[in-house]
């Protein structure tokens, strides 16, 4: 047995999970898909005294489409969300990002909320949440609150989730414009590995080809996934000419702060950030134009 000793509770409901977190929160971790938490415990990077298992709570696994947003339960499996055609039609970036997440075996077990709560700065789903401005519904025995992605991610592997809170649901904005295009890409050593840099973009056009909505961002380029709302806002009203996109790439490149490691120097990451941002902006533009 590789993990240090811990106590285990399988919560039958979200209320029970919250009660357990209220009691043990400071020394507990919520166990969802376990695809990041279990390896960290095997390497004893983490030694929680309690694991609160939320895998059997059916209410945390729902996927639903509302008028303005799509809801995914925090414990919805990545494989289930990836296969959901209705969701892919409304929030295409989620499926586009999941294509890059791990492998079949890990997506069968890994959850949407788990990826967000783990908050790896190079992870795909946190980047999509940041770019789209997803909202996280957090529940505790005292009540609920909603946090926007920008406030949710506080640093590498760090979120604003309090020790007594459990992520319940993620609300992904649905763009209503008919002519919307989105794109996700990344560079990793092998497909399924951590991204050295990842980029995501979504653009909307009106009938005349003028941009009515723009969002883009980068993962692996800073301590948290980054979105660039002010830079994206400058694209709105343009016809998304190459020059406008290149200006956005230049502006975004000034805001990133990538690190160096064995796999990539910060200079290489800066290079990738520019190339991949340009690529997703163009691909999103082509898709919006064609739709």
């Amino acid at each position, binding site marked *: *047995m*590789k*993990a*240090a*000793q*811990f*106590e*285990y509770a*399988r919560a039958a409901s979200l209320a029970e999970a919250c009660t357990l977190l209220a009691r043990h929160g400071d020394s507990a971790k919520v*166990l969802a898909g*376990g*695809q990041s938490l*279990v*390896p960290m415990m*095997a*390497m004893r990077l983490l030694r929680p005294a309690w*694991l609160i*298992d939320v*895998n*059997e709570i059916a209410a945390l696994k729902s996927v639903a489409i509302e008028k303005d947003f799509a809801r995914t339960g925090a414990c919805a499996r990545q*494989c289930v969300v990836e296969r959901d055609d209705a969701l892919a039609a409304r929030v295409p970036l989620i499926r586009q990002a999941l294509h890059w997440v*791990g*492998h*079949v*075996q*890990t997506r*069968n*077990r890994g959850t949407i909320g788990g990826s967000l709560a783990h908050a790896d700065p190079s992870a795909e789903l946190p980047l999509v949440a940041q770019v789209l401005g997803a909202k996280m519904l957090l529940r505790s025995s005292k009540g609920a609150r909603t946090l926007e992605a920008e406030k949710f991610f506080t640093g590498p592997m760090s979120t604003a989730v309090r020790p007594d809170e459990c992520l319940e649901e993620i609300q992904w904005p649905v763009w209503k414009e008919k002519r919307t295009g989105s794109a996700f890409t990344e560079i990793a050593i092998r*497909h*399924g590995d951590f991204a050295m840099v990842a980029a995501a973009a979504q653009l909307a056009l009106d009938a005349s080809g003028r941009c009515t909505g723009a969002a883009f961002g980068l993962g692996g380029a800073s301590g948290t996934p980054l979105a660039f709302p002010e830079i994206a806002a400058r694209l709105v009203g343009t016809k998304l000419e190459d020059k406008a996109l290149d200006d956005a790439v230049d502006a975004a490149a000034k805001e990133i702060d990538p690190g160096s490691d064995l796999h990539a120097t910060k200079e290489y990451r800066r290079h990738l950030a520019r190339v991949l941002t340009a690529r997703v902006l163009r691909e999103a533009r082509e898709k919006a134009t064609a739709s």
Partner: protein
Amino acid sequence: MSETLHAISVEVNGKRCEASVPVRLSLVDWLREELRLTGTHVGCEHGICGACSVMLDGEPVRSCLMYAVQANGHRITTVEGLAQPDGSMSALQDAFCETHGLQCGYCTPGMLIASQALLDSNPHPTEEQIRDAIGGNLCRCTGYQQIVEAVQLAAQRMEKK
């Protein structure tokens, strides 16, 4: 400090298994050390290599990334469960032998589980789909080519039946 034990009831390869397990015992260690189903291999023990792949309710997962206690109430299929009822090899297993889809054999149980899960849901996979399905399983001997050929051969034969 004594370990807390939890009672579990799991269906493994069609048989109901009742046990009492320490909560930090991984599913793969329970399968191998308690049930003596040593066909499933333990490689990296942190979710990289895929050697420990088993099916959980019909879908491939890594059994080093689950605690045995979490399998309670679920259905597990290990590589031992892929053989035919009389104990002879499945079409996929035969194909691995014929195409030399293994050398040292360490990754093979994981490869078989991943490939069988693919063929269960997609009987006519393209080469790209095969490579995607085994993308989470490391093999240091074959260069993967013969494994891809094995899955293609098995798919052809299963179609004829």
